[in-house]
């Protein structure tokens, strides 16, 4: 059986429109709810982040202060170390009294010294084996002095002028017993303060009593001082892991080493 719809067309249109409005309302409500939920969650997240940020801020401020303090400390240490390095280097030469004491402490009875001279002598890298790389570095430092702080500049200049210089002692004297003279030279060469000792000349001379005597010249090379190329270690090598070459340690080492030779006049 066929159903006949007698209702006019605009009635059907109105019903359709009502249904469509209901759907639009639902869609709008869902859309509004989604917006509300997302906005709410975002606002909550944003606020909690702000709270976290506010909590972290004081600690971060303290950390920044610590950073700044550390950086300032490092800078200060660097600047003071420049001065300390220079002052420590100014103390590098071995005390002359120790050198003289070492020269005369083991002198045999038959050997008589008539004079000696302690002087600085420029040494060549080829024959002396002095760290040429370090010397070149010092020369380079001197060449670029304009970029350096005054203390560093002075240290570079002093290094350039002193690190390639060896302290030499020229001993003159006379002996009646050549064997004892050779033993004396041998003793000098074994002394920790001296790098080498060699007999330069020995000339026999006639005395009024016809006694055999010889004039001699001995050349003694003094070891480089602390902080110089080839010089003693500031801190023993076993502690090299933790060593900080502060001049304080260098000074202590200098004193200990220099003080080990007693002056016998």
């Amino acid at each position, binding site marked *: 059986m066929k159903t006949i719809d007698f209702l006019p067309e605009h009635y059907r249109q109105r019903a359709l429109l009502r249904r469509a409005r209901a759907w639009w309302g639902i869609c709008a409500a869902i859309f509004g709810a989604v917006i509300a939920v997302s906005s709410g969650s975002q606002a909550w997240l944003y606020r909690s982040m702000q709270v976290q940020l506010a909590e972290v801020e004081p600690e971060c401020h303290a950390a920044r202060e610590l950073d700044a303090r550390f950086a300032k400390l490092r800078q200060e240490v660097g600047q003071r170390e420049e001065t300390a390095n220079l002052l420590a280097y100014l103390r590098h030469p071995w005390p002359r009294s120790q050198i003289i004491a070492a020269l005369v402490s083991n002198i045999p009875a038959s050997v008589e010294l008539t*004079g000696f001279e302690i002087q600085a002598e420029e040494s060549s890298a080829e024959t002396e084996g002095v760290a040429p790389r370090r010397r070149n570095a010092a020369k380079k430092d001197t060449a670029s002095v304009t970029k350096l702080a005054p203390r560093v500049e002075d240290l570079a200049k002093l290094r350039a002028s002193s690190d390639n210089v060896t302290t030499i002692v020229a001993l003159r004297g006379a002996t009646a017993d050549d064997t004892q003279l050779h033993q004396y030279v041998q003793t000098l060469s074994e002394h920790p303060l001296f790098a080498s000792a060699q007999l330069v000349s020995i000339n026999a001379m006639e005395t009024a009593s016809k006694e055999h005597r010889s004039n001699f010249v001995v050349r003694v090379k003094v070891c480089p001082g602390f902080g110089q190329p080839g010089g003693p270690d500031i801190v023993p090598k076993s502690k090299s892991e933790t060593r900080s070459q502060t001049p304080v340690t260098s000074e202590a080492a200098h004193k200990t080493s220099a003080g080990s030779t007693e002056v016998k*006049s």
Partner: protein
Amino acid sequence: MSAVVIKRTGVPRSTMVTAAIAGAAIAYVVVVFLPTQRSISNIRRDILAKQEHILQSDRLTLPTQQAEQKLQAVNAFVQRFDSMLPSTQGELLRTFGRISEQAKLAGVVVRRFDPQGTVDLASLRQAKLEISLEGTFPQILDFIKRIEELPNLIWITNVRLAKIEGSSELLTSELTLTIFGDIDDQTE
């Protein structure tokens, strides 16, 4: 009436409403949601960076203490030796006076006391001094020791010692000294 209007324009009303809702959604996403999300991400990044910074700073505590100790040690060293550098002409002359005094105390006779002028480096001043002495070996050695013990930074660069003809005891000695001074506060 409305159905008639829809028919006239040719666009169904439902499509218009859907388009309006979609437009509003897109506008919300672009104008509100994404910028807020971006600022949340920025704050999160900021927090993470700050937390990382705090963690790294915690590791600086020990080095800072070590640096402080080192600075103290270096300062003590520098202060001790800085005071050994005469910084004025007057102080330098006082050092010469001290050397003469030590010669007297050691019992040596000063034959020549010859300041050789000064050489200025960037921060240091080097004053050269040549001295000729006469005395016995113990006296001269005592004088050298006394110079080394003076509260100054002095290099004894050259030492010449020789016997005096006709004397069994007396020696003549020539010393070349370099006295270091500070140029920083050179005011006189």
